[in-house]
């Protein structure tokens, strides 16, 4: 059987099967989902090649599905990451109800994502896109519909995205007669100016909604933080990457080189998008800094990081696209891990409120190590993989003369240190609290995926070439020409380069020396004391005195950025909503629902018609 069909069947069939098996045994349900995902992953990595394709004609339109180098990156990412998450899910979801429902939708969204990356035409892309939206919507409302209208918000924005893709498809069909992606790429330069703008903007809106680019992001923070954490890591790690996947095709293949030439139509679209990405990065980071809930902090931080990736794609030079795709992969790994960490904390300690939690480092050491490594990668500190991506990203912006964008990127990544620290401090460091005295480390099936991904971050930081290889191939498929890469040396267009191997050698040596001195030798001489036993300028804190500094952690910073934060995008949307509502209320005066009134309207209309018929029909 065709491998593409087989993978889709295994995934969706696994979903249905785990839904059914939940009736028998709830543990079996998760296990089935895990096995199905792994099976699909194995098939993907061993059995699939560019030769696998699927062509059929439906309603007079040629549809096609195949895999190319560009979609291979995303396919590999989806399947390997979701296998790990599924393993984590088994313990994480243990004891929750409606597991069948959860796994069914989970597997369907994975299958839909695989469908999206296989699609070579817009119709199948649209169908899988909608399946993905629906299955993720059903998981967002897994914990109930009521609160804050989260699901509704997500649905509205997804609908906006879906309809704009539909419009674009209708337009394409009318204009070119086919809906193949390849045909759009070849026909695009022949379009008139308005048509180019329309197709481009419509498609970018679709993908922008999923990638949560400002101003289309308002659904994301709550949708991310309200779904179960094991799904959120897929939500933020993979579903949002589907937006990036689409944007890559639109910005690079469809707009092609015209987006780099100053003065062309698509150049402006790309640049507006790059700026939107930059603004998203800064504002979302500021919001992440002032959050008190770890889930929301990560949700905003995801939006901010995706802003970078969008910026990199929109700038569109070789280095920036490479950086964007590299960051996309690495972001999936570290943000996925962080969401899993929060999930583990939530399961073990019962809350994710950073003002309440503290000092879990001694209770959950492995989780802490995974969190620490991911945070270092998120902050972009060498020698981990995040640094490689950030470095290429900044260099590409500087070399291609986007100097104010680079400042925005620096501002948001410096401000990111604030929430990075807040996250670690809020959950793992600080004063030990009585309330969390008996918290235990998460079970092994949850710790292993996290540690594995943390290890990956390290490996990709030292040998970024492992990732450059598929990415470079993918970029060539997108039409970027020949892309240079090497295993451990990064370079920019000006001939400057850094060598990750020598960096890791120096850092590693110095760190090991200091670590042996302090951690091993010096540690023996010391004895452990509790966090109550501290320097308090002579006062002795009583047993119940609260020494935790966790509420309003960044108050001064909040004060400093207050002018920026005055208005949220939510505010404008709510006003728009209220405006629409009052407009409809106004309309309701005419449509009273009373037959008499409608009869009156008809008569009035007829009278007007008779009176002015000469003017109208002349």
């Amino acid at each position, binding site marked *: 059987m065709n491998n593409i069909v087989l993978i889709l069947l295994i995934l969706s069939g696994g979903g249905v099967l785990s839904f059914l098996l939940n009736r028998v045994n709830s543990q079996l349900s998760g296990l089935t989902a895990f096995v199905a995902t792994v099976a699909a992953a194995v098939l993907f990595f061993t059995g699939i090649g560019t030769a696998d394709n699927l062509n059929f004609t439906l309603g007079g339109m040629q549809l096609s599905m195949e895999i190319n180098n560009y979609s291979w990156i995303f396919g590999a990412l989806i399947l390997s990451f979701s296998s790990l998450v599924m393993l984590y899910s088994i313990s994480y979801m243990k004891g929750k109800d409606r597991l069948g429902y959860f796994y069914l939708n989970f597997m369907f969204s994975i299958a839909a994502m695989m469908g999206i990356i296989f699609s070579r035409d817009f119709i199948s892309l649209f169908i899988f896109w909608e399946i993905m939206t629906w299955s993720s919507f059903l998981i967002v409302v897994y914990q109930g519909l009521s609160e804050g209208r989260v699901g509704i918000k997500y649905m509205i924005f997804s609908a906006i995205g879906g309809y704009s893709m539909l419009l674009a498809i209708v337009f394409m069909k009318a204009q070119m007669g086919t809906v193949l992606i390849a045909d759009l790429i070849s026909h695009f330069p022949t379009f008139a100016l308005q048509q180019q703008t329309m197709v481009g903007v419509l498609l970018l809106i679709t993908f922008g909604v999923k990638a949560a680019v400002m101003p289309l992001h308002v659904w994301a923070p709550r949708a991310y933080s309200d779904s179960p954490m094991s799904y959120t890591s897929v939500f933020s790690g993979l579903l949002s990457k589907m937006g990036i996947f689409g944007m890559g095709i639109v910005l690079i293949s469809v707009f092609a080189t015209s987006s780099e030439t100053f003065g062309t139509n698509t150049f402006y679209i790309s640049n507006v998008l790059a700026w939107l990405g930059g603004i998203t990065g800064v504002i979302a980071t500021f919001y992440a800094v002032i959050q008190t809930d770890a889930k929301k902090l990560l949700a905003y931080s995801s939006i901010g990081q995706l802003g970078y990736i969008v910026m990199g794609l929109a700038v569109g030079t070789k280095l920036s696209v490479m950086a964007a795709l590299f960051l996309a992969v690495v972001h999936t790994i570290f943000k996925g891990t962080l969401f899993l960490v929060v999930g583990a904390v939530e399961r073990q300690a019962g809350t994710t409120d950073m003002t309440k939690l503290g*000092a879990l*480092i001694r209770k959950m*050491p492995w989780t802490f190590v995974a969190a*620490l490594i991911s945070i*270092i990668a998120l*902050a*972009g*500190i*060498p020698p981990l993989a995040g*640094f490689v991506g*950030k*470095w290429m990203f900044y*260099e590409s912006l*500087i070399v291609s*003369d986007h100097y*104010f964008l*680079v*400042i925005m990127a620096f*501002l948001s990544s*410096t*401000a990111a*240190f*604030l929430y*990075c620290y807040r996250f670690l*401090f809020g959950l793992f*460091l*600080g*004063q030990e609290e009585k309330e969390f005295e008996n918290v235990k480390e998460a079970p092994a099936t949850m710790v292993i995926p996290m540690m594995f991904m943390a290890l990956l971050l390290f490996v990709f930081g030292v040998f970024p070439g492992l990732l450059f290889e598929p990415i470079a191939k993918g970029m060539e498929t997108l039409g970027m020409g020949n892309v240079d890469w090497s295993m451990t040396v990064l370079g*920019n267009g*000006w*001939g400057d*380069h*850094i*060598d990750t191997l*020598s*960096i890791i050698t*120096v850092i590693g040596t*110095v*760190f090991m020396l*200091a*670590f042996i001195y302090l*951690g091993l030798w*010096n*540690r023996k*001489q*010391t*004895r*452990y*004391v509790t*966090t109550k*036993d*501290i*320097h308090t300028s002579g006062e002795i804190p009583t047993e119940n005195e609260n020494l935790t*500094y966790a509420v309003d*952690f*960044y108050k*001064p*910073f909040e*004060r*400093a950025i207050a002018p920026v934060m005055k208005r949220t995008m939510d505010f404008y949307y709510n006003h728009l909503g209220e405006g629409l509502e009052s407009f409809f209320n106004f309309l309701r005066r005419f449509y009273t629902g009373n037959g008499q009134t409608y009869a009156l309207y008809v008569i009035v209309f007829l009278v007007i018609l008779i009176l002015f018929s000469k003017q109208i029909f002349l």
Partner: protein
Amino acid sequence: MLLAFVVGVFYGGFVRKITARVQNRVGPPVYQNFLDILKLYSKKTAINHGWMQHLGPAFAITASVTSLMFIPILNGTGWCVWFENLNFKGDLIFLLYMMVFGSLGMALGAGQTGNPNSAIGVSRGLSQMVGYEIPWVLAIVALMLQTKTTSLTGLVDFQVSNGTWMMFESPFAFIAAVLAMLGMFHYAPFDVPFAPSELSSGPASEFGGKYLALMMSSGSIFSFVKLVLIVDVFLGGAANLIMLVVKTFTLYMIPVLYGIVSPRYRTEQSIRYFWGWPTFFGIVGVIYAVFVR
């Protein structure tokens, strides 16, 4: 490294002396900091609060030593046989991040101690960092645009071969960088994170004995690194050791002398300060760089 350590520590001693003189005291001898560090190294550390406290100072010293190794101390070939070529393998953006690593590591170490003063100090320090990093990055970006290189050796070579200093080539960027430097060295009025009288030296308050010794040495090396970085970038590097000492010392006096006579800002005032004139000069510097090249 030894040089950096010695110079850094002596500068610390000088600062104490100068501060004392300005405040009409005699002050400790300039080698006092040496004695302090030696004493601390020989002390036994009695207590700890867990693993992160061990790792914190280790991160800090890693960051300062690593950044030192990737900075060209003197012009021309590497000054030490071992690390001869390392500075060609890193560049400015790498350094920017490496320098943050230390403070983040120290912040994590301080976090585990559970001392509320440390936490407040860290919160203030990181907030302030967002403040001064903006003009500093603007200045650096202006230089990169003007010289079309992002590597430190490239910048030094540019200045040597053109026989000029970036300080004059790109004056606005220099102003922005100096103003940002005030914040980087954490002297008053920007000593918000350590604030001895409010927070009992903030993040460091739980670290004693060997931890403190390691942190002090790391701090000394680090201030030397920052000075050499600015000398390399704006003052054309240094051809020999004497020039290096003269240049760095002159630079160092700017934040020190400004600090001695200043009271302390509140955190948000400090952030707003950096986002005011320094950022303005930085933006002017970038625009200038674009037009000049």
